């Protein structure tokens, strides 16, 4: 299997000295859907920010075998598409079209190509016809879909999503899960929604206090109630 992302001994502390990640090792292969689970403040988002070079430290993250550094950032970002947790941060343009087109335009595509990419991305997330709407007026479920489209329009090899179902009602949540299931692309999904993890991800990684606690088949990990409750992913005292 082809390695897409490889993280070797990644450690990271924020400028205020607070340590966020310690010796994280993981490898993502082509075609996988991997869940990154862990309690609040486990370092999931920080890890995701490393995957496309928003945060980067001394070349310990490799994308297609190339170390992420200052020179290849744009290439890295065209390969690894990162969807942020809050769509109000992700969608910053006056219209949906401009938002979905933002990535492709930055990648330097021509106008015709940009239009094609935007239409295709909106088609994938089922939001054709929303081009001229203002993101502010959409429902949260619609915003989440558009946020995913803004990244899909860049034609990435890997889709990295932070908390895709946070705050969604069950109906919107399951339709989003179906949507993600239909996308044939390598996916890394950070979440503590275990229903989503079970439905979508064959492999799961538990992250707690900046360390990888477990990495393996989702069925094994979710069956281990003791492990889950030790890391804030299930009730404290399993019955």
């Amino acid at each position: 299997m082809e390695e897409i992302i490889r993280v070797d001994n990644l450690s990271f502390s924020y400028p205020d000295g607070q340590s966020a990640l310690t010796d994280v090792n993981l490898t993502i292969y082509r075609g996988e859907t991997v869940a990154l689970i862990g309690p609040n403040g486990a370092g999931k988002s920080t890890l995701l920010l490393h995957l496309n070079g928003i945060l980067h430290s001394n070349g310990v993250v490799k994308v297609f075998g190339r170390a992420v550094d200052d020179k290849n950032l744009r290439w890295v970002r065209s390969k690894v598409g990162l969807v942020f947790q809050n769509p109000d941060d992700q969608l910053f343009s006056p219209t949906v079209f401009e938002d979905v087109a933002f990535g492709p335009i930055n990648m330097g595509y021509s106008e015709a190509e940009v239009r094609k990419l935007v239409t295709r991305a909106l088609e994938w997330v089922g939001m054709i016809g929303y081009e001229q709407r203002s993101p502010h007026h959409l429902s949260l479920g619609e915003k989440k879909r558009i946020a995913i489209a803004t990244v899909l329009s860049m034609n990435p090899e890997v889709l990295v999503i932070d908390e895709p179902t946070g705050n969604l009602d069950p109906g919107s949540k399951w339709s989003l899960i179906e949507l993600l299931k239909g996308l044939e692309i390598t996916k890394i999904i950070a979440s503590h929604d275990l229903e989503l993890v079970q439905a979508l991800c064959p492999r799961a990684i538990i992250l707690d206090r900046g360390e990888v606690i477990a990495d393996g088949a989702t069925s094994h990990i979710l069956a281990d109630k003791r492990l889950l409750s030790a890391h804030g992913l299930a009730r404290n005292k399993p019955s």
Partner: protein
Amino acid sequence: MKHSFLDQYSDRDSIIHRLDPRTKLITTLFFILAVVLTPPNRWQAFALYFILVVTLLLLSRVPVLYVLKRSLVIMPFVVLIAIFIPFFKEGEVAGSYNIWLWQVTVTYSGLQVLWNILAKAWLSILSLILLTSTTRFSNLLRSLEKLRLPRVMTMILSFMYRYIFVLIDEAMRMKQARDSRNFGGGRLRQLRTIGNMIGTLFIRSYERGERVYAAMVARGFDGQTRTLEHLSFRQVDAYFGITLGLVLISAMVVNLWY
């Protein structure tokens, strides 16, 4: 809160709506310039401007009542600034009043200045309402960009448009949270709470700014901004621009002559 508060009716369709935003922007600015430069005693010119703007408003099919209401919302500010002028301007006295210790006089030339300011402000506001209710804000931004307004400024406006209501909603939620825990207390304490709320709002906006920037960087933003070009300047725009320009210029020439 809804965005349409800013550019309500801009999604409708009419001759005016279909004009290129640049045409509208330039003619509006030109119109305002003409109005402002007209001497106060040329009431014919003002009548002409009024007829012009009303005709365009009717053509745009924006509800008249909405336009009137909106134009009146802004008038108090103008009145507040202009109301004292009749009392200070020197000239032929129109009336003199004694209020307690002061003797207050109103002059004719002062009244004329007041009338003039109100009329000019109202005409300008009407034309601006016409512009904003027939042009989508995003198109207005793009036309400003095309007219070589520095990209930094159009971006600031664009972010303002996107986030002003997000921030207002946030402030509203904070207010609700405060009200639901507010059990009276002195003025001073309430003031302090408001101060804290403003501070919190500022910090949250700052942090949101950082997250938005990260989201932009994640999609290849490198400080350079690029957009697609898709405004079309058509023949209608040329006709409209030229006609309106000629009308305004002739009005100004007539003003200068007499």
